[in-house]
């Protein structure tokens, strides 16, 4: 990802340090085409917000270039970048009414009164808040405030919008509604969006691509399905969704598959993702819903493991079963509540296995 040609937003070897001793962002490279909805996902302190702030202009990169439409914006002050931004605490100006809040970016751009009113009306209608123009932010609920903040970030028709955990303070149901509305709006208007969150569900459901941040680096940048199904390293596998991890040593690599000898002595099949040679330690990752009980649906020579049922949890649509496998006792499998599915009982001994392609041998 060194090429930034033709990208609308690009980070080129960007580094950031606050104290001159440690790097918060380490060698960041990223390029986004126009109209993309990209989410920066990661635990707190992973550098995702710092990246957003550098893009907005509130932090300066210690090293490297940030390009917007092919032009380096390192030395352009925030107010000249023309980037819309939505903040976690909404940052609506409390002393101004909703209409005045929306009017603010237009006034500083010296747009005439009639045009201003028209744009404000359009922006408010867009977020279904047309009746609230005269209210003060304090008179609105959290969801309404976030809608206004969104309208304010969009009213001056920026080509790039940044959102810093905009739904963090809302309850689950409202969050889901707004997730849907935001993605729809972004796609309708064709704006490029950079969205920061630490909520993986939000990242998976909203984005065209997700950049998983950890330790100041992008660990993986991929569309949601790829990210979930084909994690490139054990951090991503752990961070996105639920995941079973088994540790062992690579015993044999043959093209698309490899054999791993677990620390407990069992042998399993896996896809070598970032293991390259025999004898290397690896963490094998397998999704709970891809584990099969019994040999029925697997190839004849598939390696199987003995497992003891420890706990069975009925969750309505699915069953969640905790097993002891290869010496670890938090191995989870999820099975759909279909009519032919058996309900396992604690204490039962079963055989489990999986398709080798669902099992990924990652870095240790």
């Amino acid at each position: 990802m060194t090429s930034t040609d033709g990208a609308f937003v690009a980070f080129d070897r960007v580094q950031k340090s606050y104290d001159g001793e440690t790097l918060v962002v380490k060698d960041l490279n990223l390029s986004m085409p126009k109209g993309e909805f990209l989410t920066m996902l990661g635990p707190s302190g992973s550098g995702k917000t710092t990246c957003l702030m550098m893009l907005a202009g509130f932090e300066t990169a210690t090293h490297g270039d940030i390009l917007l439409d092919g032009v380096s914006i390192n030395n352009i002050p925030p107010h000249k970048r023309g980037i819309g931004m939505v903040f976690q605490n909404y940052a609506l100006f409390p002393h101004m009414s909703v209409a005045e809040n929306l009017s603010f970016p237009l006034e500083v751009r010296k747009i005439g009164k009639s045009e201003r009113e028209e744009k404000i009306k359009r922006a408010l209608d867009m977020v279904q808040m047309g009746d609230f123009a005269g209210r003060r932010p304090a008179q609105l609920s959290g969801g309404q405030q976030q809608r206004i903040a969104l309208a304010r970030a969009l009213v001056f028709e920026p080509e790039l919008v940044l959102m810093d955990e905009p739904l963090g303070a809302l309850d689950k149901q409202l969050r889901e509604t707004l997730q849907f509305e935001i993605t729809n709006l972004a796609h309708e208007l064709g704006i490029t969006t950079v969205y920061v969150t630490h909520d993986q569900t939000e990242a998976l459901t909203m984005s065209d691509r997700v950049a998983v941040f950890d330790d100041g680096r992008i660990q993986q940048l991929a569309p949601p399905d790829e990210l979930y199904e084909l994690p490139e390293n054990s951090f991503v596998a752990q961070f996105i969704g639920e995941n079973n991890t088994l540790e062992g040593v690579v015993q044999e690599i043959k093209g698309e598959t490899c054999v791993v000898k677990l620390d407990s002595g069992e042998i399993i099949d896996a896809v070598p993702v970032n293991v390259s040679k025999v004898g290397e330690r690896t963490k094998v990752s397998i999704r709970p819903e891809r584990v099969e009980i019994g040999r029925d649906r697997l190839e004849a020579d598939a390696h199987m493991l003995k497992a003891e049922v420890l706990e069975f949890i009925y969750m309505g649509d699915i069953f969640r079963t905790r097993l002891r496998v290869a010496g670890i006792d938090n191995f989870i499998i999820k099975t759909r509540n279909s009519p032919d599915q058996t309900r396992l009982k604690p204490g039962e001994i079963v055989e489990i296995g999986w398709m080798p392609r669902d099992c990924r041998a990652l870095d240790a």
Partner: protein
Amino acid sequence: MAEDMLAADGRPLKASLNRALRRQKLRALMLIAPLLLFIMVSFVMPIFDMLFRSVENQIVSETLPRTTLALQDWDATAAQLPDDPVFEAMYTDLVLAAEYKSHTRLGSRLNYEMTGISSLFRKSGRAVGRFDTDRYTDAFQEADPAYADPAQWAEWMADDEIRAELPRTADAYDGWAKMLVSVEDELPVEEEPWDFVYTALYADAQAGADLPISVDLSGVEPVSLQAQFEDIDEDWLDPDVWLTIKRYSPDYTSGYFLNSVDLTKGADGIEARPENEQIYITLFIRTMIMSMSIMGMCVLLGYPIAWLLANLTDRTANMLMILVLLPFWTSLLVRTSAWKVLLQQEGVINDILVWIGLVADNDRLQMINNQTGTIIAMTHILLPFMILPLYSVMKTIPPSYLRAAKSLGATNWTAFWRVYFPQSVPGIGAGCILVFILAIGYYITPELVGGTKGVFISNRIAYHISSSLNWGLAAALGTILLVVVMLLYWVYDKIVGIDNVKLGG
């Protein structure tokens, strides 16, 4: 819901709730009771007492009760001397007042209204005992020895019929008897009445009253009391003296308040004081203007500092806050004296300016003992009162507002002026009220560095409290100051709104 809700035990829910809350209220009251009591006794009551003094004026009617009464019939506008009964009343009052030693106090009270009365009363107090009225005493005592018998006098004065026949005598005798008991510690039955009692008796006789023992008074040459008073001082023949006494004889007076705003009661009602006595209006205006300047200086100097403090990390902010609070920990007197050292003509600042060459040695700046000195020193002293509320309000303004404004396209200045500043206004309001109200009543600093041009109204109040002892005027000035502050507070509430004042949080 026409029916009352009932609690579990069948009582009305409201009553149950009240009962539950009463205990809490009682406990709350108990907690504040000591402070409430302390404030009532040490703060509220003295203030009301002081405010009362600004209109209270019982000293004239208490010291000169008979004169006050007699002067009621006197037509003051005629510019003529009152007639004899007034002089008789004044004679009696003054003799008694001299014994009680209250005539000097009255003199100084009336001196506020008319210069010279104080010495007139002091002089008269000494001389009034030596009037020629002993002629009457001798005449009565020679006519019948019973008139020289204290016991006989006591008997007469206990007889209601005789008292009704001799009203002036009875009144004079009563005043004398009371004075004798309380001042001289003697009994009237053992003492011969004084001359003024015989003078009253003579006046009664002249008015046609029947004396207890008839005496032929045709041979007695009348003593003119007016002439006697004239002998003490010709001022007694000045109708203005009597006018002043009459004007200030009511128990309550607006005189102190009129005085406070450079007015006085003249012959034709309220009029302006002579130009060279007009000082208070000027002082009030100066106090207002200088307090406002100090307030303005505090805003200008304090705002950037508060902003810096609010935007630093807590550790650094706390350290700098100590520097802001440092002046609180040094004595006010020390700080003010330090300003004297710095600002005086041979002081540090002038020395440096001369050394740099900005100011000629023979033309050093006058920075103290004038308004500049007061403003500089008081701005320094009151600055923390501006910074603290500003800081605590700014602390609550999230930095994301400024960022949001900038991301929306506002320049640094627009973002500050349209987004940050309006939200810091409550802090400015609180700081301004604090500084202004403290400044308007400040006293020590203007006294020390203000010279004559830089003093405040409070210095004048202090002067009247401790030096001139004109407490009534001091109270009136203080009351006006209080009213002005409340008025400004009200205006502020109308313009800015008092809910817009925040001390933080």
